[in-house]
């Protein structure tokens, strides 16, 4: 009896000790004490059963959170981004911009099932995945311990898919009101394969040369997609805006948002969805997820405030559009940092990002005169870049000891070299986005054409591209 008590205590200590790591690649072998020959078989059997149940309980909890997170991230594209962008365009183009987001939900999903997931997470090459998981071969309910040991690989796969959907959808903010639907779809297909897949693999894939935990040469800290999602889409957006040229009448003709009501609703949905995006990137329902959840919320709030204050100082008023733009800028900037920074540094990142993106959108854009219609670059490209840099400064081992116990993570830990690694990641994302996008734009322009004729642009893309109107008030 006494022996059994000791045994139970040992087991309890072992279970409690293992809970916070949540990264047991496979059910660990029975503790040494239980395996000793004096222990009756009934006890070891019972212990094994208990252990299986603990693993199953953890898997259930993690899987529940990750499925909810996947749904939250999808909600960011539709309706979140669709409403946010939809409200910012003129009423003749609202269906076209919403349709682009919606169509990407369908298009990228099919591409993801065929080759996308495999190109991002198959194999262990330094730049891009392989065809190991093409047509989802071998992707089932068993976990893939390389990435998430406690959830079915199907969950991991579908969660990552939602990121692949929203990333190209962000670019449509720069091409809004003048890019052909056919051209957009062909562009997005190629862009997903040529820019997104390698970027995701380099940063998050096993063996990727920027991967921070799975053998990267330049370990770049990117918790939820500062480089992969926001720099890649934001910088590509700038290239698209420059290639397409300005909208007819820009900047002389007024092009005010047709419904900021839609945009406010969209921004709020983005904010909520972003909890799935960032906290979900912990890939488990654990303390790290809570930490990322808090950082996300704090970053967004601080940036909404700093953008509004900047606007108040310059224009004498704080606008609704300014507040929601600031919130999104903060969410963008906190994305790479979410799982590495403490709450107060998250506030700092948000404050800086809100003011910085405000200047990019109002000053920088005006100086250079490009027509980034809905500021995809000013918010995502700029916010992603400053966020990735600040991640290198603010990351702390106490939040996430990603380089191993006791090893410093970011500048606050004294590891200022991490800022250099961040720069490599940022530079890689910029270069890949610029080169890839230029080539793809050329190809698409030759194949199906990229910009609608001027008369179609004036009439509006809803009628000319889709044959319908958003607001049939007489109907």
């Amino acid at each position: 009896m006494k022996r059994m008590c000791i045994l139970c205590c040992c087991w309890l200590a072992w279970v409690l000790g293992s809970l916070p790591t949540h990264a047991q690649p496979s059910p660990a072998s029975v503790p040494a004490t239980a395996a000793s020959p004096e222990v009756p078989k009934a006890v070891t059997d019972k212990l094994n059963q208990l252990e299986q149940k603990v693993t199953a309980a953890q898997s259930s909890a993690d899987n529940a959170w990750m499925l909810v997170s996947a749904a939250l991230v999808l909600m960011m594209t539709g309706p979140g981004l669709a409403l946010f962008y939809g409200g910012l365009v003129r009423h003749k183009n609202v269906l076209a911009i919403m349709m682009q987001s919606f169509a990407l939900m369908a298009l990228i999903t099919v591409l993801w099932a065929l080759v996308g997931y495999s190109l991002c997470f198959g194999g262990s090459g330094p730049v891009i995945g392989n065809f190991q998981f093409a047509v989802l071969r071998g992707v089932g309910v068993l976990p893939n311990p390389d990435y998430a040991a406690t959830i079915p690989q199907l969950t991991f796969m579908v969660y990552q898919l939602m990121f692949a959907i929203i990333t190209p959808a962000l670019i449509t903010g720069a091409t809004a009101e003048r890019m052909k639907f056919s051209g957009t779809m062909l562009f997005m297909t190629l862009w997903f394969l040529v820019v997104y897949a390698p970027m995701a693999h380099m940063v998050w894939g096993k063996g990727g040369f920027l991967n921070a935990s799975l053998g990267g040469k330049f370990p770049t800290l990117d918790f939820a997609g500062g480089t992969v999602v926001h720099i890649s889409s934001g910088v590509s957006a700038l290239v698209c805006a420059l290639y397409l040229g300005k909208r007819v009448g820009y900047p002389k003709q007024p092009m005010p948002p047709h419904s900021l009501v839609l945009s406010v609703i969209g921004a709020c949905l983005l904010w909520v969805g972003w909890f799935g995006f960032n906290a979900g990137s912990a890939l488990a329902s654990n303390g790290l997820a809570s930490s990322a959840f808090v950082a996300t919320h704090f970053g967004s709030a601080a940036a909404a405030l700093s953008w509004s204050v900047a606007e108040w100082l310059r224009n004498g008023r704080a606008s609704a559009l300014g507040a929601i733009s600031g919130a999104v800028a903060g969410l963008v900037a906190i994305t790479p940092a979410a799982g590495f920074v403490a709450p107060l540094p998250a506030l700092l990142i948000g404050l800086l990002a809100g003011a910085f993106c405000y200047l990019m959108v109002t000053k920088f854009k005006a100086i250079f005169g490009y027509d980034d219609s809905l500021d995809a670059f000013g918010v995502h490209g700029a916010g992603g870049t400053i966020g990735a840099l600040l991640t290198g400064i603010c990351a702390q081992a106490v939040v996430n000891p990603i380089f191993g116990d006791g090893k410093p993570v970011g500048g606050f830990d004294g590891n200022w070299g991490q800022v250099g690694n961040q720069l490599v990641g940022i530079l890689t994302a910029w270069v890949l986005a610029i080169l890839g996008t230029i080539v793809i734009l050329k190809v698409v322009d030759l194949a199906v054409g990229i910009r609608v004729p001027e008369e179609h642009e004036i009439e509006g893309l809803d009628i000319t591209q889709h044959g319908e109107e958003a607001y049939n008030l007489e109907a």
Partner: protein
Amino acid sequence: MMKIEAIIQPSRFESVKDALLEIGIDGMTVTEVRGHGRQKGHTEVYRGREYTVDLLPKIKLELVLPDNLVNRAVETILKSAKTGKIGDGKIFLSRIEEAIRIRNEERGESAL
């Protein structure tokens, strides 16, 4: 018969309508319009881009009345539409040659 066209501030519309109703005028045509006279517009700023909005929303009332009602109607509109600020609008009067009720083809003042 005279036609009164009154362009007024949207915020005054309900009181103008009620005041006209009180003196027994209940037929009118109302349109939401945009325009400006001496009143300057305002500026709107969207992400740093400034737009001057100089066409402001107004309400246009159209009433065709028998001559004996016109003066009272004009006075009523003047009283109820006035805020004393620039942008209160204008009243235009014009003579109407004929009025025809579509339902029974009545003509003249009895068609009003």
